[in-house]
């Protein structure tokens, strides 16, 4: 689906969303008349220091309003911008700042909903979609940490061998299903059904207490150990303390 189709589906009442240099900003009107803030990275753009800062500034402005307006973050990005200049200026701080801003906005009562409909990768994925409180995806989305050819280079395994291994486990190969199985993506929306209804259902759902991605990963089999280990560490540390 294109961004225009998605926005039209999400906001039949209309929206004022514009895309500039790969960043999407604006609001959409909800059926009941309220609005949803829309901000994200689209058109396969990489996320660099300026983009991250711009998005974070917007998120912080929303958070300061304290009106509880939800934030929807559509994502179809590349990875973080890979450049010497971005790193020179401290890209890690800019990306982390954006992620923190999203989490703070959520803590201030603005539900954050990631909507992955295209690609996303590595640090850009972490700083955007994975920093939202709830991440949904549309079929056709293609998240990846590293593509298989690059992985083949690093691991010195042939592409065939890697592809074969990818059949046995969800844990390393790119792709939507694999990240659903690890629990990174909470749910996949149905593009045939009304996106607006699915959005409203989601926004009406009570906020889940805490981060349950590791438990999802255990339930879905993509991350068999993470939840149990985290829990065990937390309880052992508490015992000692």
């Amino acid at each position: 689906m294109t961004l225009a189709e998605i926005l039209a589906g999400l906001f039949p009442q209309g929206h004022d969303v514009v895309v500039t240099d790969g960043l999407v900003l604006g609001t959409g009107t909800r059926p009941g008349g309220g609005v949803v803030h829309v901000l994200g990275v689209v058109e396969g753009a990489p996320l660099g220091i300026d983009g991250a800062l711009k998005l974070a500034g917007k998120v912080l402005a929303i958070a300061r309003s304290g009106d509880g307006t939800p934030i929807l973050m559509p994502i179809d990005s590349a990875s973080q911008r890979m450049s010497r200049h971005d790193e020179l200026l401290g890209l890690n701080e800019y990306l982390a700042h954006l992620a923190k801003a999203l989490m703070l906005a959520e803590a201030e009562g603005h539900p954050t909903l990631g909507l992955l409909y295209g690609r996303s990768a590595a640090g850009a994925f972490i700083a955007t979609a994975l920093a939202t409180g709830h991440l949904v995806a549309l079929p056709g989305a293609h998240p990846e940490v590293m593509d298989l050819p690059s992985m083949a280079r690093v691991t010195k395994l042939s592409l065939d061998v890697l592809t074969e291994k990818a059949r046995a486990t969800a844990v390393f190969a790119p792709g939507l299903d694999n990240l659903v199985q690890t629990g990174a993506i909470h749910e996949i929306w149905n593009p045939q059904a009304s996106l607006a209804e699915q959005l409203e259902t989601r926004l009406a759902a009570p906020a889940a207490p805490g981060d349950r991605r590791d438990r999802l990963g255990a339930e879905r089999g993509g991350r068999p150990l993470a939840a149990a280990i985290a829990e065990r560490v937390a309880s052992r540390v508490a015992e000692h303390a």
Partner: protein
Amino acid sequence: MSTVFEPEALSWYEGSARQRIAALVDPGSFREAVGPEERETSPHLALFDLPEQFDDGMIVGRATLDGARILVAAQEGRFMGGAVGEVHGAKLVGLLRAAKALGLDVLILFDTGGVRLQEANAGETAIAEIMRALVEARCAGARVVGLVGGRSGCYGGGGLIAGCCSALVVTEQGRISVTGPEVIETNRGVEEFDARDRALVWRTMGGKHRYLIGGADRFVDDSPGAFRNAVCEVLKGPGRLDLETLDAEQARLEGRLARFRTAGDAVAIWSSLGIDDAPAVPGLSTRAFRALAVCRENADDAR
């Protein structure tokens, strides 16, 4: 007349994660949680016929520092380059969740190349969970201090986690970055980044540069004692994370971007900070460098 160089007993850079913890916290105070004897190794490395490590390269537990209770996590940068896999990441998630519940400060001894490729999806998700748990712990009042001075630096997702910490202590060897030099070179060509030019790597991502642009809060010698002193100092400061903090960080990062948008190289940035002999910065001793670095961009506790 120079004298013989006499190294301190333990170099942070050379030490193992366990040695670093032992030398950092109060002697004998560290209690590991889910230690190597529990053999919680990676369930995924066998698929690649790779050796496992009993602690999966992540050591977590509690300890005391100057008598105060703290939580500690340390990455072993030599095992899989300190990369974050499922178990490795989950241990830190659990520790940070405990920090929130217990209201205890946390030290993270970074040493990582980022996500572990052989379990990339698990590692990527774990980093997102770590960041969330870290932010929640900080919102609950815990300080989370990152220590960066290991062999593998603090790359990829590690750099993002570091960016969420309330304070960072770095050494000259410590590198903080998202994309590593080799990856930039592979993707963009050697003209963009010559990864073999190590001086370039360090002046772009190394501890001195990060300290000068306000990307780190303390710059210390490569020794546990130096880290300990700096950690004790920053633990006295505020670590609170709220909108005010992030507004201040927004202003700080906007200021940096405006000031150095056109700078092509670290040396140009250092010059514009007012350092007369900027090319000499990498060669300076810690003491000389800190004296010179009074003109640095301040981090203002805004992170």
